[in-house]
């Protein structure tokens, strides 16, 4: 394992210290907890948004704490859901009296830990609602299984529900907008290399020089299948087709997120975006806004995901609203 770290067990805390030193105008860390909250929070009378999950997805989620997006982000160990007490501390710290919306990615562990935190908040009479993001079309959706994973599309929920809260909507309304966004966003990813969890010390899987893993999540877990590596256009076409099969985007306007998994240069992400745009243009789907970059990473994994969000007037307005956070600023 080759990493710039001091000790595998110290990576999360040391990273958070570094984040706070870099962005003191945006975030502070709750003493004794791996939780980042707005430097000037809580915001009185505003619905607060808390997200979080395992670490290793930077800038998610701490990078999106700031005006117009999240109020708090809870950082678990690498790829491991944070514990309920940590989430509960975040909820207490950000509650401005209007309640707290938990934005959870659909993983068994995340749901259990956030649910337990919500139960704790309930006992202290803090109003809490939650939404579960499940945008990954690589995974079969079934009532009998865990269902789809939450991956990069989650960033759209942070942005849009964050804007709704900032606008003064109440908890039910913010939740409604978050759920509408979840219902309209789909993602799919692929990777060229595995990644190494610091505490594990070795890669999560192995890929030959000519292989890629398709339909994988953001935790180095294996994907739906393995394939021979293809051209950027072929890879992108496959990802986009899977997404377009899932919901009807025809005649609609969409927002795109071409997300890097940590080890893929922007050059390659833009090459992918070129193809995504041309496929959508052919199908008469209008691209309203495009984001390209590392938003939801998987440590040093080389790979990318494509997320497509179907927009209506309300979502467009909220997507356009200003935001000011360490990792996403829109004036």
């Amino acid at each position, binding site marked *: 394992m080759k990493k710039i770290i001091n000790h595998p*067990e110290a990576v999360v805390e040391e990273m958070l210290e570094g984040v706070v030193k870099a962005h003191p105008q945006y975030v502070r860390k709750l003493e004794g907890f791996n939780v980042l909250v707005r430097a000037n929070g809580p915001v009185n009378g505003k619905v607060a948004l808390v997200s979080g999950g395992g670490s290793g997805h930077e800038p998610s989620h701490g990078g999106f704490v700031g005006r117009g997006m999240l109020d708090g982000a809870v950082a*678990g160990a690498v790829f491991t859901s944070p514990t309920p007490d940590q989430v509960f501390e975040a909820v207490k710290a950000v509650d401005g009296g209007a309640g707290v919306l938990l934005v959870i990615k659909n993983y068994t562990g995340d749901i259990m830990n956030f649910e337990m935190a919500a139960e704790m908040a309930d006992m202290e009479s803090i109003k809490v609602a939650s939404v579960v993001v499940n945008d990954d079309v690589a995974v079969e959706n079934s009532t009998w299984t865990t269902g789809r994973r939450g991956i990069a599309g989650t960033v759209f929920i942070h942005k849009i529900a964050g804007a709704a809260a900032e606008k003064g909507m109440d908890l039910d309304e913010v939740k409604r907008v978050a759920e509408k966004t979840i219902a309209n966003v789909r993602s799919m990813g692929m990777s060229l290399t595995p990644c190494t969890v610091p505490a594990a010390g070795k890669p999560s899987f192995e890929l030959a020089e000519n292989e890629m893993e398709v339909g994988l999540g953001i*935790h180095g877990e294996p994907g739906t299948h393995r394939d021979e590596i293809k051209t950027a256009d072929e890879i992108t076409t496959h990802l986009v087709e899977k997404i377009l099969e899932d919901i009807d985007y025809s005649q609609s306007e969409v927002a795109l997120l071409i997300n890097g998994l940590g080890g893929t240069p922007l050059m390659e992400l833009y090459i992918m975006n070129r193809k995504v745009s041309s496929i959508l243009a052919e199908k008469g789907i209008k691209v309203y806004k495009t984001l390209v970059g590392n938003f939801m990473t998987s440590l040093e994994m080389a790979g990318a995901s494509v997320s497509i969000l179907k927009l209506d007037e309300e979502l467009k307005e909220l997507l356009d609203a200003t935001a000011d956070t360490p990792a996403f600023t829109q004036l």
Partner: protein
Amino acid sequence: MTRDQLLKVIEEITIVIEENKVHLTDLDQAIGDGDHGINLNRGFRAVKEKLESLRDKDCGTILKTAAMSLISTVGGASGPLYGTAFMKAGAVVAGKEYISVEDSIKMFDEAIQGIIARGKASRGDKTMLDVLVPAFEAWKVAFEEGESTEKASEKMLGAAYQGLEYTKTIIAKKGRANYLGERSIGHQDPGATSSCIILKTIVDVMAKGE
């Protein structure tokens, strides 16, 4: 089982989980996200630090304290699940300094019900329940049939290992392994493995009769 034996069981579990950290993580890398051993070891290390302060406490308090440590340090799915299991088992023996056979059956049952409620899983989903449920049933039936503790333990562990083997043959329906679909067949479930290890440790300590 006396309070001292309970403390010994927990202490031994912390040691055995540490020894199996890499093994559990390897199993998890095959079908999950590769952190099961790391997470459990972090949790039980936190439990170990609390043991000294629990020497004169009742069995309920010991288990509840262990539960809180697990819930607040493990994370992932295994933290809430094992934490809930210890919490529910502890509630059965609140204020008691001795765990009777009847208590153990009730504790085992409550722990499993807690895991089911928290994880919304059932037997056959390729989870720890595939070990725990048959192990519990074997344990209960053995006593109903008038078997000795020794014989009941043997039957319970037999059922647990059979359940563990069974996890290799089925598709995961819970946890991150379920994203693999049929690719999860052939792999032994990490959570079922750690449950087996814990049950075996309990039996080993009781057998020593310390």
